[in-house]
Structure formats: C-alpha cells, structure tokens
C-alpha cells in the first residue's frame, strides 16, 4: 500500500509541486485507508486549576469509522461509526449512543476530524471556512465555524500535519477554553 502511494506520489509530485493546496492535501489524505496512533490531550478549562490531561489510542478507517480510546486517567471509548457516536465508560457502566446529526455542535466538531482524515473537503467546507498554510511536508489548517450555533461553542480548530498524517488538533472554544491533542501516528 505505502509503496503504491509513494509510487503515485513520484509521478504526481513533480508536476504539482508548485500548485500544492487544499485539494491536493485532501486528495493525499483521502488515499489513506486506515491509520492508527497514540494521542495525548491537554484541556485548559476555565473551571479547572490544572489542565485535564488524557492519553490513549486513536484509529481511523476510511471513510467514517473513528475510535478514540482513552486509557488514562480513565478507560473510556468514543466510537464514531457511520454517524453514530457511542461513548462507553466501563468504570461507570455508562454506554451512551447519539446520532451526531441531532447535535449540530457535536456534529461539526466530529466532522472537523473525520472529514480531515477522510479527505472529505465538501463536508469540511459545509461546516468551516478552511485556511491552509505551509506545504505538503508540513501544513497547518485553520477551521473557522460557519454556523452561529457552532460558533457559540467553538472559535477555531487548528489541525496540523506532515504529509498525509495528522499530528496535532488544537481547539479554541468560545469561552476561552482551549485544548491540544498531539498525535504520534503510525500510518499503515
């Protein structure tokens, strides 16, 4: 798989190196069928003295299966599959499913990650104004919510990456809270 992509890149890169932009980034992200990685997330919240730190694993299978398995400090899984978000906390014996489309703010947030990983530009642009900086090797994509409802909660989301890999997701919330998730990936 990787060899194929590299081969393809060999043919494509020389011609389009100067015209690298959002469509090209999305195209290369869309090539990735599955990816896995570890994450560390730090959430700075107004009501907390110290940031909430959590860590675990992330995995994605194109186009719409995303799993966030938090191992520390509490075991919790968050699975997005075909638009249904399942939150499971074994310690508290809580299992909750919600259809993300019913919660526009949650949906917008979930799509920021899923659309990016799936290289789904139309969906991304349905919710956000997308600003891209950098080049194919190292890029930084700023997402500004279009809908008022989402804006009331999220100010901006910044996703950065190397090549076809996402390395960090930062979110600035409307109330001043912000969080950073760094991803150490092993793309397959």
């Amino acid at each position, binding site marked *: 798989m990787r060899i194929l992509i590299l081969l393809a890149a060999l043919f494509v890169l020389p011609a389009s190196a100067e015209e690298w932009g959002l469509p090209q980034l999305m195209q290369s992200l869309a090539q990735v069928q599955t990816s896995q990685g570890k994450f560390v997330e730090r959430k700075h919240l107004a*009501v907390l003295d110290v940031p909430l730190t959590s860590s675990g694993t992330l995995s994605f299978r194109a186009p719409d299966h995303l799993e966030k398995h938090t191992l520390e400090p509490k075991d919790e899984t968050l699975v997005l599959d075909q638009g249904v978000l399942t939150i499971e906390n074994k310690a508290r014996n809580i299992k909750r499913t919600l259809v993300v489309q019913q919660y526009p703010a949650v949906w917008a947030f979930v799509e920021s990650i899923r659309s990016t990983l799936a290289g789904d530009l139309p969906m991304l642009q349905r919710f956000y104004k997308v600003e891209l900086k950098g080049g194919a090797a190292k890029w930084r994509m700023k997402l500004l919510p279009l809908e008022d409802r989402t804006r009331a909660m999220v100010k901006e989301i910044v996703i950065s990456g190397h090549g076809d890999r996402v390395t960090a997701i930062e979110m600035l919330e409307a109330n001043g809270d912000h969080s950073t998730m760094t991803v150490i990936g092993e793309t397959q």
Partner: protein
Amino acid sequence: MKLRGYLAVTVWLAFVASCVLVIARTQFTTDMSAFMPRDPTPTQKIMVEQLRDGVVSRLILIGVDGAPAPVLAGLSKRMAEQLRAAPELAAVNNGEQVGMEKDFELLRDNRYLLSDAVTPQRFSAAGLRDSLNYYLDLLATPMSGMAQRVLPTDPSGELIHMLEQLQGQAQPLVQDDVWFSGDGSRAMLLAHTRGAGNDIDAQERAMLAIRSAFEEARKGNAEAAGAQVRMTGPGVFSVQSRAAIRDDALRLSIIATLLISCMLLLLYRSPRALALGLFPVASGALAGIAAVSLGFGSVHGLTLGFGITLIGEGVDYAIYLFTQIERNGSPQTTLRRIWPTMRLGVLTSVCGFSAMLFSGFTGLAQLGMFSITGLVVALATSRLVIPHLLPQGFFVHTPAWLGGALMALVRAAPRMRLALFLVVAAALAFLVFKRDAMWNDNLSSMSPIPQEALKLDEQLRRDMGAPDVRYMLVTGADDEEHALQQGEELVAVLRDLAAQGMLQGYDAPPLPSRKAQLARQAVLPGELELRRNMGEALRGMPFRSGTFAPFAAEIAAAKRQPLLDREALQGTALGLKLDTCLVRREEGWSVMLPLRGVKDAPAIERGIGNATEAPFVLLDMKRETEQMFRDYRHEAASNALLGALGIVVLLFVSLRSFRRVLEISMPLAAAVVTVTALLLLTGHTLSIFHLIGLLLVVAVGSNYTLFFDHRCTSAQDRERTITSLLFANVSTMLGFGLLSFSQSPVLNAIGSTVATGAVLSLVFSAILIVRKDD
C-alpha cells in the same frame, strides 16, 4: 282512489315527513363507542375513555415525503410555523428546538423540585464528590462546553440527571434541524388536536388545517411539487372511516338503486310502478334511522351504512306484490293471496333481528332496531299504501320463455339433492375441522379501517419511535395530589422492576406531588452544612476556587421557592406530557403510566402488588380490546342462535307442521353452512359482520323458502311466484353484491356474505322444497 286510499296515503306521508324531521335533528357518530359494551368493567371504562377523549386519541402523526431531504425539512419548518398558530391544534412538534427554551428554563429553575435524585445523600460530601467526578468525565468529552455552563450553579448534577432521563426516551432522527424517519426519506411532525378524539368534526378540521398548511408551505416551490403529506392517528382513522362509509354507502347505494331500477323498469314497463316499488324501501330506511335516533339518542355511521343493505330486502316486498298480480287481477286480490306468506317472512326476519335488539353492545342493538323498524315499515307500506297508488289494471308482463324455463329448472332441481347433501356435508366437515381458526378477534378485522391505513400507521409510528402503547399502569384517587402520590409509589416500584430487566422503561408524570416537592425542599442542606460538604468534596479536586460561589445562594432560594403545579407546566412539552399522564375523570383523577418493553405482564403485576399498597390496574390494551370483541362476538353468536330458535318456534306456531318447518329451515341452514365454508375457503376469517350477514341471509332466504312452500292456486300462479322470487333474488344480489366492492371491511363482509347466501338460499329452496299445488 277511495277515501280509505287517501287516508292511507296521507297518514303515510305524514309518517315519512316526521321521520325526516327526526333525522334532520339526529346526531351521527362514528367513534368506537358503538363497539363498547353498555356496562363496561372498570378496566374497559378506562380504555373506552382513553379511546374517546384521552390525549392519545388526540394525536396526529404527520409524514411529509416525496422530495429531497432539505426540501422536506423546509416544508416541515414552514408547516410547523403555521400550525403553531392554528386554533385547531393544541401543540405541534417537528423536532425543531423552537419553544424548547421554555422547557429548559422550567427544568433549570425548578431542578431541586423536579429531580427525583434529590435525596439527603446527594448533598453529603460523598454525594457531591461523586457528582463532581462525573462532571470531570464530562469535561473530557466533546460535551465539555455544556457541562461547564451548568457546573457552577448545579454541582449536584440535577439538570444533567433530568436531561439524561428525557434523552433515554426514543426520539426520531434529526436532520436539518427537524425530525426524519430512520431512512431520511420522510420528515415527521407530531400534532395534538384541541378537540377530543371522538369529536370527528374537530378532528376533520384539524386534518384540513394540516393539509392546507402543507399546501401553503409548498406553494411556489418547484422542488416540492412531488411532495406528499400523510397523516395517521385515532382521530384520522375516525375521519377516514366516516368518509369511507359515507362515500361508499352513498356511491354504492346510488349505483345499486340505479341498477335495480333499470331491472325493475324493464320488468314493470311503468316508471310509476318503479317509483312505487322504491317507496317501501325508502320509507323503511327513513323509519329505521329515525327509530334508532329516538331510541339511542344518536345514530352510528355503521348503522347508516347498513341502511343501504335494506334496499336488497325491502325492495323484494314490492316485487312479490307487483309480479304476482294476475292479468285482470287487482293488487288487493293478490295481496289477499300472498299476504300470509309475506307476513310470515317479515315476522321471521324480525325474529332473527330482535335477538340483537337486546345486545349489550350499542352497535348491535342499533342494527337490530334499524332492521326491525325498517322491515316492518317497508312491509306496511307495501301492504297499506302502494296498492292504492298502483295504476288500474297494472300487471307485469314477463316473457313466456322465462316462466317456462324457470319451471323446467324448478322441476329438475330435486334431482340435485344428493349433490347438495354431499356439498353441505363437506362444508360442515370443513367447518368442524376449522372451528378453532374461524374467528378473527383482531382489532383490525373489526375496525372499519382499511388495511393500508393500518400499515401506514405502523410505518409512521416506527419512524417516530412512538410504538403503539400496549400496557398501561393506571392508578386513581379522589384528588390530583393523591393520584400523583400513588403514581410516585408505583414509579418507585417500576424503577426497581426495570432495573431487574422486567421492562425497558415507563413514562411518568413530569409533575411531582406536592408531598414529594416538599420532601425534596426539606432535604436541601442549610448554608453552613452545604459549604462544609462542598469544601470536603472539593478537596484534592482540580476545580478552580470560587467556581461554585453561586451554589449556596441557589440552594437557599430553592428551599423557599413556590411549589410547582399543573398550571406552571402549561405551554411546554412537559405540560403536554403531564396531560397524557394525569387525567381528570368522572370520579376523581387518574395517573397513567405507559410501559415500554414489557416482557412478562403477570410477573410485573405480581411484583407491584407485593411491593406496594397503592391501588393499581395493569391495563393490557391489546388483550382488553380482543376480550371485548370476543365477548361482543360471543354475544352476537348466541343472540343469532336465539334468533334462529325464535324463527323455528314462530314457523311451528304458524304452520303447525313439523315436516314443513323442517323443509323450510333446511335450505336456510344449508345456505348458512355453505356460505360460511366458502368464506373460510376464500381466505376470510369471520368477524361479527359476517355473522350479521348470515343473519340477513336467513332473513332474505326465509322469504324464498316460504314462497316455495306457499300453496298456489294454479300452475300460472306458481310460475308467477317463482318468477317473482327470481327478480327479488337478482335485486338482492345487485344490492349486496355491490357492497362487496366497498373499501370498508364492514360493508364488504356483509355484502359478500349476503349476496352469496341469497343465491344459495334460492337454489337450495328449489332443490329441497317440492310442493304439490291444488
């Protein structure tokens, strides 16, 4: 016309006019109440009340489909906007968060009164710590924004607790802000009518309002050209079945009248005689409706629909009279000859129907009264009025070949006896074989609602995630407060039973009793205690100091806040839900708790009985309606048997010959057995309407057997008699045969049963009755 004639006609006209007057002031109903017993058990009473004007009966489910989802969403929003202002509707919901702020505010401002989690432990240091830990978990999820907003004023988590309880209930999918079916092809709305479920006019106005809101919403929108609106609900069913019965009854009776008229015109060759022939039927039907109206206070739509079935039999009397007048004879001499037979025929029918008159079910009793009055009046008109109005020298020319052919057939008929016995024996054996699978006590077989409408209802309910409620736990008391208290006791038991997995869930009234509210206020801690517990709970937690500054003041205010009552919930979704759960009844108040996912109803009943003293009834709507219909059918069957017995006694008294009674009854019994077997063979299961049809077969058929048995004065006389039977039979077939084309299962059942039965009765009479004339 002689003086007596004038007198008879005048009296008759006055009678008809007074019938019309009564009918003009009559109230027509189509609700299910006609199917309800006149002396219901307490359980049945609750159910009947619910069906009649319970909140569930006011529900209309609306589906909009036939266009792309965003277009449907737009239609749904515009419809809802218009319908929210419609006077016909009390509430409209399409999933939009419009008006939900009110509910949210109500929950937030009264959280310490409303939350069932408010207990002393909840505000201890350990309890608060638990809740704060839960908040920390929430803060780590994408829902952190919402959690943070309520955290400072509600650290014990009442609002989240209540929202989670509400979330737990099934909700349809939301797309583009409005409710959609699971596959996204249909936008869904839910409306509650202001009028009661049995106020069909109000239901019809509500449906009209919905339809016009839909038309208004799609006006000028090319993309919505193919869009359709569909509705379902108890009220919608009533409106539709009323329309179906009314339309069918009207349409089919017009067609039947036209066809029968054509036949009679060919036969009589006199428009005047034709008109006269229809007078007995018309007077009979009018008198029947008027009698039911006077006797019962209102007339059910079914009774009215049944009226057209009288055309079939009522028209026979005039046919017998007209066709049997001899050349150079007069109506009077003819009547003198055939009157005893006609009279006995009507008495037989009256006997059959009178058993229904004493039925415990309004619907059956109405049918009985209608038929008896109708038949007696039709016969009386034929006997007393029509002869005076017939033109001098009127007689019916029948083609000579017809009479000859008929007589040849009748003479040959007895050769078929062996075949007939074989057929009837086979039919009887088949009935015995099928005896357990003969009856259909399903509501759908009884209800006048077409199968398609029921399917749509099921579909829309599934889309809405609102399954038909089958089990309901009901308790009641003299006043609202005690009813609510008992409800709370039951809810506490249900919570345990649900935790044990005996049921999936239940709906509870969103208003706690005053007692419960006061108890909750009482457990809220004082300021000192609260600060101490909070301080202890926060030790070692990452929350920023000062975050919970507003909490103490909130609790202090909650301890003094006025209690909630029914009034306070009005205008919110919670208020609407309260109206479904807490109902004022004739005597006192009832609390209704719909149960979901019930696995073992008797076990639940036992579990509740063991756990609480509170009085309760576990209502199984399905079992209860089926039981009711079974009772209904049993009663109708035993009434019909009584009627049959009455007929035999009547025949014996008037004929005084065991052999003749047997001869007259045999063709009828054979016809009833064969028709029943035929119905089962063609895939029908029998409902009470087939039973009524069979009763009609006996009523109509008894005329045939009596005329076959009737002693004739000459061969010509016999030929005329047989010819008149043929024409009477054809008119019955036309009248009832047309009914089998009706959309309404009720009219359909009666139509196909009687049309087949009448033909068989005639043929069987010819085969079985051989009369030597003088």
